Structure formats: structure tokens, C-alpha cells
């Protein structure tokens, strides 16, 4: 049952933002916020680009993320496999699905890190403001101070639901272990 719930929990990924990056500065007390969806960006992307061009950062846009092209299919396959795992209803299917989801999560984080590194380090040599030794890689998760900005990166609604789904799987595994101790 929990596998089904977990699989269903992936569905909102299509309708809710998965990840968010926020920036605050003295002159932006209200903050600038960018949301990453399954296939597009939203929020103050233009303002963030406006601010970042002074230090020569690349222009952020949907075209910057080739992931947007195939993420919808990957998620679709994950949901399908989840339903399949539920249908099979065996221990191996639960473990297998959990492993798959976890692997997916780790890959996403690795991908995000690589993007952040690239984005933060690829600076236009003709930028107006160049600070010796400074790079602007956004934090993977959590907060980081970058010049006059405080940057935050973390899951958004969809991301939290996904995490919740994964937690359910984990709960399922724990219950499974308690009810039927694994034979060695």
C-alpha cells in the first residue's frame, strides 16, 4: 500500500515546483526567489539575471537545463515502476523501488551540484565587477553568503512531497523488517 502511496506522491511533481533558490540582499529585503519545476523555471528569474550580469554570470533560462527535456519521462517511468512494484507486492520490489528512488535523488543532487559549480565559476572575463578569487556557486542545500547576497537553496513543495514519499517507502521497509525479520 505504501509503495502505491509513494508512487502517487511522485505525481504532484508535475504540478508543483520541485526546488527553490532564494536570494536576499540589503536592497532586496523581500528577497528574490526562483522556482525549478519539472520542465521550466518561474519566479524572479529576470531580476536574478539582472543582478547577476554585473558579475558576469550566465543568463539563467529554461534552455540552460537540458534536464527539462527528459525529466518528465523519467518521472513517468518512476511512477510506472512504483505502481508495478505495488502490483508485484514482494519484498524485492519494495527494496528495488526504494533503491531506484534513492539513486534518482542522489543523481538529481549530483546534477544540481554540477550545474551550480558550472554556473558559479563560469564568469564573463569582461564583467563589470570582478572580485579577486571570488566565485558564486549557489549552495546545494542551505544558506551561503555571496557578496552582498545571502543565497538559499532547498526543496520546494513538489520536492517535499517526493521526500515524503521516499520517507513512506522507508517506513514500509522498517515495518517490513519488524514484521518479518529478514532471514539470513
Amino acid at each position: 500500500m505504501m509503495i502505491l502511496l509513494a508512487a502517487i506522491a511522485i505525481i504532484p511533481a508535475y504540478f508543483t515546483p520541485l526546488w527553490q533558490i532564494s536570494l536576499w540582499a540589503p536592497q532586496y529585503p523581500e528577497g528574490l526567489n526562483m522556482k525549478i519545476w519539472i520542465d521550466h523555471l518561474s519566479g524572479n528569474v529576470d531580476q536574478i539575471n539582472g543582478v547577476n550580469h554585473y558579475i558576469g554570470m550566465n543568463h539563467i533560462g529554461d534552455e540552460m537545463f537540458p534536464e527539462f527535456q527528459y525529466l518528465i519521462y523519467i518521472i513517468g517511468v518512476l511512477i510506472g515502476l512504483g505502481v508495478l512494484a505495488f502490483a508485484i507486492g514482494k519484498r524485492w520490489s519494495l527494496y528495488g523501488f526504494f533503491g531506484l528512488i534513492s539513486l534518482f535523488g542522489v543523481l538529481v543532487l549530483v546534477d544540481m551540484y554540477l550545474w551550480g559549480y558550472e554556473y558559479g565559476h563560469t564568469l564573463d572575463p569582461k564583467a563589470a565587477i570582478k572580485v579577486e578569487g571570488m566565485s558564486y556557486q549557489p549552495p546545494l542545500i542551505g544558506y551561503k553568503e555571496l557578496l552582498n547576497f545571502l543565497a538559499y537553496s532547498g526543496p520546494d513543495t513538489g520536492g517535499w512531497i517526493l521526500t515524503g514519499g521516499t520517507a513512506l517507502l522507508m517506513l514500509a521497509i522498517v515495518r517490513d523488517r519488524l514484521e518479518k525479520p529478514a532471514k539470513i
Partner: protein
Amino acid sequence: MKKNVWLLAAGLTAAALAPGCKPKSAQTAISGDAAAKVYVAPGEHDEFYNIVSGGFNGQISVVGLPSGRVLKILPVFSVHPENGYGYSEESKPMLNTSNGFVPWDDLHHIAVSTTNAEHDARWVFANGNNTPRIARVDLTTFKTVEIIEIPNSAGNHSSPFITENTEYVVAGTRFSVPVGDNKDVSIDSYKENFKGHISFIAVDPESGEMDISFQIEAPPFNFDLARAGKKKSHGWFFFSTYNTEMAHTLLEVNASQKDKDYIMAINWKKAEEYIKAGKGVKKKVRYAHNKWDEETHTATSTIKEEVLVLDPTILKDIVYFIPCPKSPHGTDTDPTGEYIIGSGKLAAIIPVFSFTKMLKAIEDKDYEGELSGMPVLKYESVLHGEVEKPGLGPLHTEFDGKGFAYTSMFVSSEIVKWNIETLEVVDRVPTYYSVGHLSIPGGPTGKPHGKYMVAYNKITKDRYLPTGPELAHSAQLYDISGDKMQLLLDFPTIGEPHYAEAFPASLIKDKQVKFYEIEKNMHPYALKGIKDARVERKGNEVHVYMTSIRSNFRPDNIEGVFVGDEVYFHVTNLEQDWDVPHGFAVKGARTAELLVMPGETATLKWVPEKEGVYPFYCTDFCSALHQEMQGYMRVSAKGSNVPLKFSTGDVE
């Protein structure tokens, strides 16, 4: 693996949720006695006048400190509906230029006159940025009394800055432009054909009257701001430059490429010697010089056609360049005149130069190169030291006279206090938001009054009750009398303040003109009493010699005026008492209204277009019977047979 994922998930959750992880933004605390420190009790006066530029409104606002109250909006480069400046026939010539009448300009900087590098507060100088001009305001009347246009200049930003005895007001051009007979050139030919001119305007020590003494033809850089040397460095002037890349397109990028631009040091005493020796070249130009006469209550505008230019590539020892990091904005000299601070707006440090070292470098010919024959001094040889990690986006520096400098930081939105000798940062306070200029009473002079500091900000956002898309610019007042700067007050301002200067009110408050003596009124249409009130026709001109005194106009019934006539209402306010202005407005007049001070005469021109009876009335609530202060003018069809007739108080 599972355990790891579990831990990872828990870790992520904790990291994302934990509110304690978000670093605290800068302190916003107001300590308890702030209100008492800015409270000026009813009937009491502020301690300082703050003369604040209005930026894009082309005006000056006069603010009291520490209350932050606006005392007056003083029109300079823009017409002013409040008092008829630029609308009355007398004041229109003040806004004349070589391009004709310009009703609105952009006013950035203030210079309050000094003697021996201390404020004497006789005059305020202000720059017209767009159509280059310098204005002089008389501080006994708070009135613009002179405006001089600057030829060979465009974007008069590096202006007005004054020498320590107000010998000169300078005007450096922001845009370099082609000049002379060679003005229609390709923009691509920037490096060959464009020039940056720096103007030195002599100020008469008695009358304050301005006269362009000479110009220095400088390379085609952008000149941003300037400061005169003072005390030991008296005789020198320092100009910040940017776009030494000499780009003419996308300056945002192309003028930000060099690691160092320059502070241009000018030995103006040397320039004076060359002029005495006849080395200046007279060049043909056109510029307007407008003067207000307090006896005729009328402005005159004269077009002048010549300016004396010095070429520093030929005349040695006038110009030296000091390398200064990353597009310096402000260049400021400390109260002793020894230190010159360059605020590289894109730089990570603040360089402080030593005047003594500069002289030595010049003497030793310690040059790193030259620009068209003008020496570039070695950065290290002139440097006193660098302020490390001051903040982001340094713009301007003022002083407290106690050995500290205060630098505004646009990007990190703060003011940083540092020790001029040791270059250590000792305190910093946030501003709301993105401070541009800052102002300390006496801050740019040899005698600062290190008690208050005002931050004039560029971004307001949530500081006050919102008023739609267009917001007042915000300012904050700080107490800087102690070791730590203390935020006292946050107040909205008029226009977009750039620079402001403040001085003790005691310098001028007892010298204020309260009214104009009617006996000294030399206006050609003035009346000294009610008995001469009359109407005269000269061809199609109708001159109404009108008096206003509580609570009537004389004459107040006028007939025999025809459609198409040029009607001039010359209104003399006969009152001889403080604070009794009279206004004048006639229905349908497209030249608006007048506000006439006691003892003054002002003229409103009106060309009636339709017949009828037109009411006129006093627009300034002058007395208990103000609502009775009114009259009628009858306008008849052209060629009709209505005789010229005027009267007051006659009833048939």
C-alpha cells in the same frame, strides 16, 4: 547504503528546515534615546541647515537637522509652480541657455561657499547636469541669483566643487564630446575627435558673481566627481575619471575593463601662471550667463561667445594622473588636505593617497608612464595605504574632524567608518537601501562638525507607507558623536537627493532678508504706492500697473482690452512686513500664476483668446479678507469700441 540514504534524508531535512541556519541580517535596532535626539520642540529651531540636491527635479530642498523637516523647496534649474519661478516674465531669463529656454534640468551636487576651508555659507553652488550649468543661490534670500552655462561640456556631473576660499567653482564634463567647428563627426572617431573639458569659474569674493576663467582640455575620459585640495594641498584639484578605456558604447562593460583608472590632479596655481603669461587660447563658443537683480527684481540673460582654453599636453606641470582602482566615483580630500580618497565603485579596497607623497613623486619624476605627454604617477609611490575589506561599492567619503572617514557603500548598503591614519575599519551601519551620497555638517571642509551624518539612499521599497510605483527617496540620520554610529531617524525626501551639505544654522539665520524695501524697488513697472495704479496701452500691449495690499488689487475693474492683446500684469506687493506675500492668478492664463514677496514686482503675461469678463484673485491666503481680494478684466472682440477704463472702488 540504506543507512546512508536515511542519514542523508535526515540531514537534508534538518538543513532545509532549521531556521537558525539563516545568518542574521545586519542589526536594525534603534536605541531608546533616538527619538529625544531628533525631537525639535514646537517653536524651536533645528541646529543645522542641510542643503539637499533634488536630483531629477532640478531643485534644492532645505532640510533642518536633526529633525529631518523640509523647510523649503528652492527652484534652481526647473520652473516652480509654487512661486512662479520660470513662469513670471522677470524670472524666465534665468532658465535661458544657448539652446533657448530649458524648463527642467537634473541637479546633483551642492557646494556651500567657504573661507579658509570653513563654511561661510554665503552662497550655495549647484550643477545643472543635463544642459551644463552652474547656479549660485544667495543664502540671505534662498533664491537662485545666477546661472552660468558651461560650454564644451555635456553631463556636467563633476561639478560644482569649490576651492577653499571659493576662488573657483569647477565644472568637469561627464561626457567627452566633439567641440569647436568639428562637431558633426562619427561616434566611432571618439578617440580622435572627442575632448573632456574641465572649467574653472572664478567667483567674485564680494558679489559672488561667476565668470568662466579658463578651461583645461583633458583627454576624452568621463569625469565623475572632484574635490579641491585644502590647507596644505590648496592650489590643487582632484578629479575622478572613469572610462579611461575611452569607450563610446556599452560603457557598463567596456568602461569597466581596466584595473585602474585615474584621479586627475590639477595644479591650478600653475594654470593661473600660464594664463598670466598669455598661454591660453581663446576659443569660440556660445553660452548663456543669467543674473538676477534684487533691485529690479528681474533677471537678464546674456549670450557670451569666448572661452580661454589651456592645453595641458603642451603646458607642462598642470595635469598629473594618479592610478586609482576600478572606475573611481567620489574623490575626497580629508580635513587636513593631506589625504585624497578615491572610491573605486567596482573595487574591493579603498585607496588613500598622500598629498606629500604625490608632491615627492612629481619632484622625483616617479612616473609609470604618460598620457599624451601628461605624467602618470606610480600608484605605490603616491599611496598612503588601502582600506581592506571596506564593503562593496564604495562611492563617497565624508569626515568628522576626529580622524575618521565615513564611506558610503552602495552595493552592500552601509556606511563604513574607518581611521584615516591606520586605515582600520572601526564601525559599520546599514542604510535603507543602497546609499549614494552621505552628508556630515561641514563634512567636506577643513572644519567638520562630527555630530550627525545623513545617508541619502537610492532605493526606498518598504521604508514608508507605500504610494504606488513612485516612491519618495529615503534618508537616514545617524548620531556619529560616539565611537559607534547610531541610527536616529528615517525620513522621506524631495526628488532624488544626490549630494547635500550641512552647516550650523547660526551662520545665516540672523542674516535673512524678511522683505524687499519698496523704496529700493527699481523695477521699471514698480509702483511705490496705490495712487499710481493704472493701465497703459502701447499698440497691442496692455500694461497693468497693479498694486496688491491687504486686501485689494488696484485697479480691480479693467475694460478696453481686446482679444489678441498682450496683457502684462505688473503686480507690486506694497506690503512692508515679513511673511505677507500676495498671489495673482487670472482665469485662463496659460502662463500660470505669480507669488509676489513684499516690496517685489512680478509680471504675468496673458494673451486673451476669447471675449468675456475674466476674474483674477489673490492665491496666497493673506488676510481675513483674502477671499475679497479679487477683480475683473473685460475682454472685448478685436476692433470693438470699448474704451480703455480702469478703476478701484468706484460705484456708479
